[in-house]
């Protein structure tokens, strides 16, 4: 049979249909029901899943940051200091631990974390920031102005 027009070649674009579809089906292998067996449904869901995976990488970072903050907040609450004053106090003392480290310390090094809250409390008190009440317990912490960095 001789084709005199190119019209028949128009349909034959890209790789063979089976291989094109197999690529999608491979990604849909763990889906349930028609989503894994019917191509037109599978391809929709695979695309959606890939978009989610792409966006999820960024969201994961944000979620982890939120989780760490929640943990540090809980740790601060335990020692009667607000998260904001805690971070402000540490920053003013030039202690530059990040949320992740602080959360780790709150979980695994409770005594170190407590001394960090003590330092922050003392500093916020020395600087006259709101949110910290003078506590007799805090007199135990000797700083004598040493927490202030000289520049």
């Amino acid at each position, binding site marked *: 049979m001789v084709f005199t027009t190119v019209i028949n070649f128009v349909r034959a674009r890209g790789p063979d249909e089976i291989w094109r579809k197999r690529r999608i089906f491979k990604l849909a292998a763990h889906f349930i029901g028609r989503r894994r067996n019917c191509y037109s449904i599978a391809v929709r869901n695979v*695309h959606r899943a*890939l*978009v989610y*995976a*792409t966006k999820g*990488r960024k969201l994961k970072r944000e979620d982890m940051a939120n989780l760490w903050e929640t943990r540090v907040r809980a740790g601060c609450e335990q020692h009667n200091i607000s998260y904001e004053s805690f971070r402000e106090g540490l920053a003013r*003392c*030039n*202690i*530059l*631990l*990040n949320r*992740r*480290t602080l959360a*780790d*310390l709150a979980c*695994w*090094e409770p*005594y*170190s974390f407590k*001394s*960090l809250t003590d*330092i922050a409390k003392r500093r916020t*008190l*020395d*600087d*006259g920031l709101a949110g910290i009440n003078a506590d007799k317990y805090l007199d135990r912490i*000797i*700083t*004598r*102005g*040493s*927490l202030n*960095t000289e520049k």
Partner: protein
Amino acid sequence: MALFLKRFCSQFKNLQLNTSNTLLRNIQAISLIPSIQNYSNTPTPFEVVDTEEDNKAKNQILNKVNSLVADKTHGRLFAVVHVTGKQFKITDGDVIVIEGYWPPDVGDKITLDKVLMAGSADFTLIGRPIVEKGLVRVQATVIEKTLSHTKTHFRKKRRKQYMRINFYRVPQTYLRINEISFQDEINNPKEVRGLETAIFS
């Protein structure tokens, strides 16, 4: 204990300013009250500062820590180090993964110098922002350099005939922490050693 160092330095200042050991100092808090119209009835707080008493307490703690360090009875140490913009809480034998381009090659032995915190079960040194240089030694070996699994970057806009797909892998470096140890005495930096008897003119 860089904290202690600062504290120690600030003591000199106090001695210069005041001849007596006991001095009265106004707490800074009261001067920071912003409004002039609201006068406070509470008396201005003063505190009695006994520098000798403070020094005694401070030295007691330092001696205790130093004896632990000297006898090496502090047990396993942990440290918080800053590497490529990230902080890691590490101890002996840990493996950390550093993502992104990082020059050290496999087999390189390196020391991590930005130690933000170091401690054991009994004491912790807190750096401002890093502990004294040369005090804590964190030794590590690069054990593997590899790439992460393939990550798919897929963008699609519905009904707009827009679809892009890219693949990428992130370089990863596996770092084994060999040893965290104290190299020196705490609160006695090399730079100022022997300066007690020096005469400055």
